[in-house]
């Protein structure tokens, strides 16, 4: 593991940080489009050691956070449907819906199971033929192959009591919506490493080509992020926006063709609603008609009342990069990770949670310490 653990060696960080500090770019704003990066940037203390003219901003990179309240309410309604066991990833449990969270529904005696993997949901379906197992599937391109694989396995194994409620989304329409809205000026983008491992680094070429914005695909260790940031600043300095793959030990230009092929076999794109952005065309993944027997939306005719977000919550604007969590009046007072009012405070990758946990303790890679 020595080669891989070398990426965690923060003593190496100082050297590249010096190089970053010498880059002559003028004020720049670098945005990351991945919740994993949000956390890694805070945890490594990168924000606090960047030169003053380099501003780091988070975009809509947390799938839990961009899930709309209407979709959350649908999950809650599914969990309350007689005979159903709702299975989902742990991240979703505490997110407040319009009335209640899945956690509250579970506490009231309905069956909500946290699973680590869709594999566990399939095992549950096999173990409980008397019940309907509905998997509430959130996530971006990284997570979609696991959902596709589950549906394909359910068909092979003849599982008739397994279905999927898909609220999965595609990152590129989200990124385009943010840039198109024009609320924030973005000079460079840290590209999502694990999304790119599936769809390929080339999928992000539209940033330099159509928007003139440099992009560096990055891993999640401190050295990866420093390397990506330095590549971005260099491209700004040289005024030559391009794509740099700074995570080549994982990401290939074409991505994981097999995984994405399975996603395309099982899912089609559809218009879907994002928190903070509204409905974005072709930004969601829905089961194809040929897999409709696994589609929970068809199997259970769920209708929900009008959904509502907490009136004080500014998650939508936080996700668009228009405000930071510190601009929210209830940040850290009535909204905390223990009693969150919005998803950005619940999810470990949400900006509000990251600010709450790391804001004042981020000094890990301070040079010269």
């Amino acid at each position, binding site marked *: 593991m020595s080669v*891989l653990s070398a990426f965690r060696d923060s003593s190496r960080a100082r*050297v590249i940080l010096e190089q970053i500090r010498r880059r002559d770019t003028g004020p720049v704003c670098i945005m990351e489009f991945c919740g994993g990066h949000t956390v890694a940037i805070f945890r490594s203390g990168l924000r606090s050691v960047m030169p003053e003219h380099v501003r780091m901003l988070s975009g809509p*990179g947390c799938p839990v956070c961009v899930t709309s309240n209407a979709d959350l309410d649908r999950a809650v309604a599914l969990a309350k449907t007689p005979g159903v066991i709702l299975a989902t*990833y742990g991240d979703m449990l505490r997110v407040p819906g319009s009335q209640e969270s899945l956690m509250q529904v579970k506490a009231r005696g309905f069956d909500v199971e946290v699973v680590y993997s869709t594999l566990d949901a399939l095992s549950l379906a096999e173990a409980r033929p008397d019940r309907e197992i509905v998997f509430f599937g959130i996530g971006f391109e*990284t997570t979609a192959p696991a959902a596709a694989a589950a549906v394909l396995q359910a068909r092979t194994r003849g599982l008739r009591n397994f279905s999927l409620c898909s609220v999965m989304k595609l990152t590129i329409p989200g990124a385009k919506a943010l840039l198109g809205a024009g609320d924030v000026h973005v000079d460079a983008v840290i590209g999502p490493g694990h999304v790119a*491992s599936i769809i390929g680094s080339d999928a992000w070429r539209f940033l330099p080509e159509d928007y003139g914005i440099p992009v560096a695909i990055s891993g999640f260790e401190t050295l990866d992020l420093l390397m990506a940031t330095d590549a971005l600043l260099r491209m700004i300095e040289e005024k030559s926006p391009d794509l740099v793959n700074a995570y080549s030990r994982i990401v290939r230009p074409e991505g*994981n063709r097999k995984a994405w092929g*399975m996603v395309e076999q099982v899912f089609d794109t559809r218009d879907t609603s994002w928190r903070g952005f509204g409905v974005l065309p072709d930004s969601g993944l829905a089961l194809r008609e040929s897999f409709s027997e696994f589609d929970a939306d068809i199997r259970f005719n769920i209708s929900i009342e009008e959904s509502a977000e907490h009136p004080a919550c500014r998650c939508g604007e936080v996700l668009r990069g228009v405000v930071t969590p510190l601009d929210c009046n209830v940040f850290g007072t009535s909204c905390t990770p223990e009693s969150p009012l919005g998803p950005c405070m619940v999810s470990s990758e949400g900006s509000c949670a990251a600010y709450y946990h790391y804001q004042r303790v981020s000094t890990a890679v301070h040079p010269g310490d």
Partner: protein
Amino acid sequence: MCLAVPAKVLELRDNQMALVDLNGTQREISLMVLDGEAAVGDFVLIHVGYAIEVIDEEEAQRTLQLFEEIEAFENRTGNPPGTAS
């Protein structure tokens, strides 16, 4: 959510499954979405129970070499690591 972690393949099993060592814990994961083959001893990247990539150790080494070049350059130009320029 998109977090994925490296793990070492310990054993290949039936139905495209494998036993891996994930930071000292043994876990069974699926190789179903992996493009290409994983062999015992390889490091794979695991996301929600599925291996999504085999980690390319040569590429990892190449990236580290880049750091070393930067470091050597810094030392040559009289900016030892850690000093402000």
